[in-house]
């Protein structure tokens, strides 16, 4: 099992036919995005049809796991009891390299919340929440430099 940052009681994702493949890849620590095989556009969350070209053909495209912080919030209220000793924590929307227009929600860990900034470069790190569930979190990139954004 990986290092742990969040408690076991965090909500478990509900999945459907469109999203199941993403979670299967995640369980194997593969960060993927749904890519249209007709026009190449990426989309997230996964859906049944490409909003750009309306093709229903798609594939799971593996990403390098690097990106930058598009926006964030420092959560200071424990919305579930077991977070009481884990607040504050940082939720981010991350702009992923190789997945234009397909930002994802995640967390920034291993950082003082007052140091978080929009544009900060981040790297993926996996947290195993259970035997079949792994979540991609992010930590500041080793060579953290702000992107151009």
């Amino acid at each position, binding site marked *: 099992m990986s290092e742990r940052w969040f408690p*076991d009681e965090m909500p478990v*994702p509900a*999945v*459907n036919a469109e*999203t199941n493949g993403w979670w299967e890849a995640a369980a194997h620590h593969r960060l993927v995005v749904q890519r249209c095989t007709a026009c190449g556009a990426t989309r997230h969350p996964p859906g049944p049809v490409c909003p750009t070209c309306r093709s229903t053909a798609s594939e799971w495209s593996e990403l390098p796991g690097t990106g930058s912080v598009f926006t964030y919030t*420092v959560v200071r*209220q424990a919305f*579930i009891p077991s977070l009481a000793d884990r607040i504050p924590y940082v939720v981010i929307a991350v702009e992923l390299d190789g997945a234009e227009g397909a*930002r994802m929600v995640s967390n920034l860990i291993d950082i003082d919340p007052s140091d978080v900034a929009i544009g900060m470069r981040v790297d993926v790190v996996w947290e195993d929440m259970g035997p079949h569930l792994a979540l991609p979190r992010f930590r500041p990139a080793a060579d953290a430099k702000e992107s151009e954004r």
Partner: protein
Amino acid sequence: MNAGPGAARRGACLVGIGETRYAKWGGIAETSEYQLAIAAIQAAVADAGLSMDDVDGLASFADDRNDATFAAADLGLPELRYATMSWLPGGGGACAAIANASMAVETGAAEVVVVYRSLCQGQFHRFGQGPGGRPTKGPARVPGLRKARTLLEAHLGFTMPFGMFSPPIAYAMVLQRHMHRFGTTAEQMGVVAVTTRAHAARNPRAVMGDRPMTMDDYMASRFVSEPFRLFDCCLENDGACAVVVTTHERARDLARPPVEVVASAQGTPRGFGHGQYSNVGMPDDDYTSAGARTVADRLWARAAGAGVGRDDIDVAQIYDHFTGLVLLSLEDFGFCGRGEGGPYAASGALAWPDGALPTNTHGGSLSEAYIHGLNHVVEGVRQLRGDSTCQVDGAETCLVTSAAGVPTSALVLGRR
């Protein structure tokens, strides 16, 4: 208000309003949410000077637990000819429900439609809380993935496990980005909270009417999710309200001065999806907006056809689940430029009676009550009857907006 080129065709009218008492969540335990809905409908029909025998349609919006079919039977409607619930989520459909009722009476599908909303967050769950509003119990072990029952639930699978539990967290991220791009400040958001609290102080229905707030109070309130403090977030309430919609012809003979639906619009721009609560991948200009830019363009075009321009608006009821989203709505509806919502609010524009655009004259969801914004429509009617506790002198036009950051809707109401 001038009779414009489209004035010959008169829109549907809002002829009755009804409200129960409003209370903090859990404050109404002796009456069920459904009983409150029935009470609000009865009050609105009585206010219009109509009988339940005149009502032939019911309309509401997303996730309503109080089915129109049961209500029609229980209220003894002679015949139910029209029953709709808007798909626009959360509070996004309040104005859309009015618009849908208006279209029903204008096409003859029905003649008298009551739009209603009842919320007892104490009896069900508090929207501002975590998953389902229930403390998570059970074994300290993730049981594996489960099957989503709805499309939204599958989308929230990409947010909830990361601790984006509730709307204030999602929309705090929107305002963080807005601050980054445009320099919006906490004090500018605070102006919305403080101004509408002052309006509520004059309103005997307002849940927070006896709780004055200064800017120091605002700044001292605890952070929920930065940059949102507790006082950036709307209330969680128990209560219900209803609005009666009928034709212009029928409205002329009723008890109250009719308020006309001058224009309406609903929807989203391309790529906006269900809004920033479940979608962070939309274009930046939409992400940092209320999602109402296309709705606003359509609304103003239609209002212009009826002889009403944006500059003619006398008073506004802007959906206020969060202070910051009011700033974004003001931008989307064009009362100020992109990124200028903060300075516009800070100029005093929203304050009754002297601001350029007195806004949320009942106190809004931040200070009157959170009834998914249908109470904003009720206040719009009250302003145009001359009955508001923060009455804008001679008000003839009112903008009402429904939600922000989700698919949204809006109305221009008029008196003429």
